[in-house]
């Protein structure tokens, strides 16, 4: 894929022309104004047949160095504004966008239509309304509109090979304002609408990624998410301090993985409570899980119990992972489940990396620095201390929220979750019974001291 930023011949010529104007005429003639603090660019991208339509709306206050013809009191002269709008559309929009069909960079778009709109106009709420607006009647020429308070609406058309192709977009609008959000809606054939909320320059975005492209992106996201989450890492450390052999690690890590996958996927499919108190509750429970594990390490950890308790805490951590994922699911395209599973794979890879570093480090520590039992107690005490601080802080946030009013709807939601928990407990019990039946008495019961 070509990666260099394209500048059309017209854009280049126009920039030179603007530079010439700036040198010849006093600067005051140009529409100098401050760079705005925040701007929202609205866009629709719709491939249809052999054409990709790109509808865009940007506030004129973000357009620098374009002279808009004016009349009295700096109202825009709407009868003469069309060329300025086209120049602005080229310099500040189409020159900042690269659209790829597969790996091929699309050619310069054709400007089909430009409009100046009032800031109260709401036609960009839906594609059909926006299209009708941009191709419909212009504002009456006598409309009074101060030049910085208008909106620039544009319809671009890109020639494409097929509306079924895979498209990617790179919109570099970071120069429009100090903070830019591009609200892009992609409308591929079939009626699906994919909404993206992109920061100023979000890099190349695959609008309809293939499963492996989405998977790669989410593996990376999962990998770095676990490495970023110090609380998840401390929990992991607690888990493995007393159990460092593969036979003990595998059931624990598997249990954690299965559990957090369940709640992560459930959250992505909107089964988690959508309430302001829920994230602080989960954060508090995560801190609590660290404290519990650390204390259990100090008292006496038993493998048979650890994988069960790890499963329960894994459910909580899965909700925690989902908070980090919610703003990135927009990049999953039509592969939500693939992306979620890939995110989990990334998390596992991150965990394996951490384990690969932690386990030998702990071995060295316990062999050469401090005896295993004493080392376990010291390390766990330090972790418990940190966890306690987090727990207090997070509970402080949680208690700011009022107790939810008890309603039938709320109780029904609670019962739904209770049912899930009971069902999980039943499954866990069943697995326990079956493993007991197939193993000899006493197997799997490994005390801390007996681990080595």
């Amino acid at each position, binding site marked *: 894929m070509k990666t260099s930023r394209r500048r059309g011949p017209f854009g280049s010529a126009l920039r030179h022309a603007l530079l010439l104007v700036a040198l010849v005429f006093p600067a005051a003639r140009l529409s100098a104004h401050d760079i705005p603090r925040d701007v*929202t660019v609205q866009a629709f991208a719709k491939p249809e047949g052999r054409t990709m339509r790109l509808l865009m709306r940007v506030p004129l206050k973000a357009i620098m160095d374009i002279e808009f013809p004016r009349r009295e*009191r700096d109202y825009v002269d709407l009868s003469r504004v069309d060329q300025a709008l086209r120049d602005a559309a080229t310099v500040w929009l189409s020159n900042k966008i690269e659209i790829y069909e597969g790996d091929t960079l699309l050619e310069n778009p054709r400007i089909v239509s430009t409009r100046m709109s009032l800031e109260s106009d709401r036609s960009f709420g839906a594609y059909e309304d926006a299209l009708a607006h941009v191709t419909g009647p212009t504002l009456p020429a006598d409309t009074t509109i101060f030049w910085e308070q208008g909106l620039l609406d544009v319809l671009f058309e890109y020639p494409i090979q097929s509306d079924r192709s895979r498209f990617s977009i790179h919109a570099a609008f970071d120069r429009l304002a100090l903070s830019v959000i591009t609200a892009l809606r992609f409308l591929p054939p079939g009626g699906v609408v994919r909404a993206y909320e992109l920061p100023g320059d979000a890099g190349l975005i695959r609008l309809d990624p293939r499963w492996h492209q989405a998977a790669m992106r989410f593996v990376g996201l999962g990998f770095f998410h676990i490495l970023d989450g110090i609380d998840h890492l401390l929990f992991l450390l607690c888990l493995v301090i007393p159990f460092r052999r593969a036979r003990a690690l595998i059931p624990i890590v598997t249990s954690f993985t299965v559990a957090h996958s369940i709640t992560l996927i459930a959250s992505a499919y909107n089964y988690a409570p959508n309430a302001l108190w829920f994230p602080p509750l989960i954060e508090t429970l995560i801190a609590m899980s660290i404290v519990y594990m650390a204390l259990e390490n100090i008292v006496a950890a038993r493998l048979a119990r650890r994988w069960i308790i790890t499963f329960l805490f894994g459910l909580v951590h899965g909700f925690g992972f989902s908070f980090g994922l919610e703003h990135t699911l927009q990049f999953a395209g039509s592969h939500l489940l693939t992306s979620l599973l890939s995110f989990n794979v990334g998390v596992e890879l991150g965990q394996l990396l951490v384990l690969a570093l932690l386990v030998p480090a702990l071995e060295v520590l316990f062999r050469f620095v401090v005896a295993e039992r004493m080392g376990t107690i010291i390390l766990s005490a330090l972790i418990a201390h940190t966890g306690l601080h987090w727990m207090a802080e997070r509970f402080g946030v949680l208690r700011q929220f009022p107790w939810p009013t008890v309603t039938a709807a709320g109780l029904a939601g609670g019962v739904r979750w209770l049912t899930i928990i009971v069902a999980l407990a039943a499954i866990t019990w069943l697995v326990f019974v079956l493993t007991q039946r197939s193993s000899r008495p006493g197997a799997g019961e490994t005390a801390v001291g007996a681990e080595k």
Partner: protein
Amino acid sequence: MSNLTRRRNLVVGAGFGALLVMLAVGQTVLEKTAAAQSKAGVQAPRFEVDPLWPKPLPNHWILGSAIGVWVDADDHIWIIHRSSATLGNNEKPLEMGTGECCAGAPPVLEFDQAGNLLRHWGGPGAGYEWPDSNHGIFIDHKGNVWIGGNGGPDSHVLKFTKDGKFLMQSGKKGARRKTGAAAGGNEGDVAGFVGGSNDEVSFGRVAKIFVDARANEAYIADGYLNKRVAVLDADTGKLKRFWGAYGNKPDDTPLPAYDPAAPPAQQFRNPVHCADMSVDRLLYVCDRVGDRLQVFTPEGKFVKEAFFAKNTKNAGSVWDIAFSKDPQQKYIFMADGVNEKVKVVDRQTLQELTTFGDGGRQPGQFYGVHSIAIDSKGNLYTTETYEGKRLQKFVYKGMAAVTKANQGTTWPGTR
């Protein structure tokens, strides 16, 4: 496996099964109850004050009496306040040169959603007459900023760009001065001024402006001296039509003091304090001291009225309104600066559903809650006059069953 263990497993397994069945039945019953409850009972929007909004002003600036608020198309919050004119010397030593803090902020202030101060401007300038006592702010569909004024000689409205560049003045300052009366005159010094509610050029101490985008017409709540709603061409500022209470021809004859037991006055009392248009093109007019809201068609035909806290005297109970953000604008939020509440009103029936707020100086309380506006997310913003001198944000928390007529202070975490 022993018989004992097998029997125990059977019991535990059956217990799990029975529990799951009971939970399923319980959930079905609760869901049916919830569906029935949602159909019955009154629901109303619920709010909580955001005690950390807005952020502190820069430059040791403080607000004076804050008498106007509006939210623009970018969800930025604009207020107008009276700055130094309403600050005691002990409030503005920096300005007086006698200490380090504080000074009156510029009259027009713009805040973003995070509560940061953005643009700030206002005050006398070339080409227009700044009001003696500014009052009311509105951002129209073209992004222009309108302000009125209720100072002694104020009888005009002004239009600026968002950057404070002057665009238009409608009406002339001093137009309501009695023939032969001396120049000058502060707010409240009404002796030298007289209402002129049939004047086709100027106004009489304008309280608030609302611009109807569809017709490009400005509705003027006119006002503290006049007793009418006036409608202007929003571009030229030329008067197009006007009317008084019940759509009557306005009459400036002084009315007896408001008596809740007396038949409703056939004219507005001063001040006519708001004139806001709903999505179904009905104009809601605040007859503040008359404790009533009157509803009109855009042409001035009277539709209906309703009274609120009818026993409220002095400054009255109907100060300002904002419409809810649902497509039908089902609710009206009404600022009541005497009883220090925001009333939640059903727009169709004009029934008061509940209120929130209380008198006081803590977040969520009010001292002279004067103006109210709403953003696209349904959050409310209020400003306070007198010594309230404050802008507050009330975060929309969704719909909730009405359990109290007055919810009191909406402090986060107390309900």
